[in-house]
């Protein structure tokens, strides 16, 4: 069985985000970029399924400028077998991304698609669900456990208040939550090997998908800052302030 893992290049999660002075967006010039953490978990899960003998091939795909090849190489170093770079310099919304991925699904015919539940830049949490809709597949979102058996996948999902397990026929779309696994680090030999793994490039406009979005960003501003308050010296003073000053207890 083939597993398709769509991944995204995003700002490194340790980098302090700075909004541009002209309010047009976030400043990404000379900023460290990385594989989106949830995508890393998706790659790891695919690799584990392959190691367990449930999958035979892992294909990673990413959409963007030539720079995304860096993250595709990272995924290859983590254990993916080959990569597809869909090249565009346009900023795409989740729907356009899902439409491109639906075309990749049609070409590649994977048994399972695993992807991160959200990217830490746009925080949309949409692409997996949209891809499932466009391909008619079932969806197991926010997965904390994935079990394959008899042409089906059981996905344990992190929901408000607990866990829910659903069963989906394959092919299916699974989106990863934080606790699904702890991604490994790529070893130096694997990083070297990844450089020789196949990486195809296709132009985004060759898929016959409209890449224009009806959503425009009017402005991006920093969040309102909250003023710090006072330090109290003791528990008694804290309780007194909460009772008589803030009046919340």
């Amino acid at each position, binding site marked *: 069985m083939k597993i398709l893992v769509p991944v995204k290049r995003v700002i490194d999660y340790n980098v302090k*985000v700075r*909004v541009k002075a002209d309010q047009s967006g*976030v400043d990404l010039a000379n900023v460290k970029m990385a594989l989106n953490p949830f995508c890393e978990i998706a790659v790891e899960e695919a690799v584990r399924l392959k190691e367990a003998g449930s999958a035979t091939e892992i294909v990673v795909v990413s959409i963007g400028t030539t720079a995304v090849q860096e993250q595709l190489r990272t995924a290859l170093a983590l254990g993916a077998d080959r990569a597809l770079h869909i090249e565009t310099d346009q900023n795409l*919304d*989740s*729907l356009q991304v899902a439409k491109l991925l639906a075309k990749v699904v049609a070409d590649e015919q994977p048994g399972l698609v695993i992807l991160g539940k959200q990217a*830490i*830049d746009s*925080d*949309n*949490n*949409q692409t997996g*669900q*949209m891809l*499932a*809709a466009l391909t008619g*597949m*079932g*969806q197991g*979102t*926010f997965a904390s456990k994935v079990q394959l058996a008899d042409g089906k996948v059981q996905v344990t*999902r*992190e*929901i*408000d*208040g*607990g*866990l*829910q*397990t*659903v*069963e*989906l*026929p394959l092919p299916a779309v699974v989106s990863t*939550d*934080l606790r699904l696994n702890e991604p490994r680090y790529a070893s130096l030999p694997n990083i070297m090997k990844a450089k020789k793994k196949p990486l195809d490039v296709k132009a985004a406009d060759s898929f016959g998908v409209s890449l224009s979005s*009806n*959503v*425009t*960003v*009017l*402005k*991006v*501003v*920093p*969040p309102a800052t909250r003023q*710090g*308050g*006072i*330090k*109290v*010296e*003791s*528990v008694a003073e*804290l*309780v007194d302030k*909460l009772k008589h000053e*803030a009046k*919340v*207890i």
Partner: protein
Amino acid sequence: MAILIIAEHNNQSLKSETLKVVEAATTIGGDITVLVAGFNSAAAATEAAAIAGVTKVLHADNAAYEHQLAENIAALVTELGKGYSHILAAATTTGKNFLPRVAAMLDVAQISDVIAIESADTFVRPIYAGNAIATVKSADAIKVLTVRPAAFREAQTGNNAPVETLTAVHDAGISRFVTQELTKSERPELTAARVVISGGRGMQNGENFALLNGIADKLGAAIGASRAAVDAGFVPNDMQVGQTGKIVAPELYIAVGISGAIQHLAGMKDSKVIVAINKDAEAPIFQIADYGLVADLFTVLPELEQQL
């Protein structure tokens, strides 16, 4: 303008998030229809009809909708949604699950996690874990939005809107519900609690979270945790407060042994009063706390429980 809201409920009763989404919808203006899709869920539909500002309730009651499976709910909402200008759901794990599926089937974008509505087509949402706030405008014929409950008040109740029963059943026949384990707790839910007390990495282990119990009991508080505490395996992920967990805005938020990583602040900085207890005086949490206590939590917590 005609707005369709998909209610959040557990078949027996409506969740407070739904009242917040109705409140958000009233700022758009227009007729508000609330869809209650569930199984043996008449009580929830009745509650929805009582929300002020609701024009009509649509009630779809079938086993196919019992567990809010995305494939079935999305099929129903897509069918109904074609007649509306806006489709709204709460940005909960339920809403986030089915609504993008609806948007894709309607061939429109979804605007996620809306925290303010500027007009019928212009919305404000946090990006980059709340480190930037974007204002976006949608030219789509149908605007599909998830609304962050913590950003809106609850709508009033006292209405008696008509309830219309839907008979058509949309069972996509794709997914099957297997099991559900909800954390049993006498405490209020994190996103609905008036007081939240959260522990971080400073709690050192899962057992020490018991130190928060007595305080939570006395304050009627929900207990949360930072992502660091979840990642360290102290507590389950459904307790996580932060950009990748729950977004809360209680009257009182008490952060214990939490340094104040930006990803945690994104989940609680809209709380009315913030208390921070941390032995590190330089912890960033103190920069946003109304009341900070620099002390060892293991001496402070028993003392606090006693004095409440």
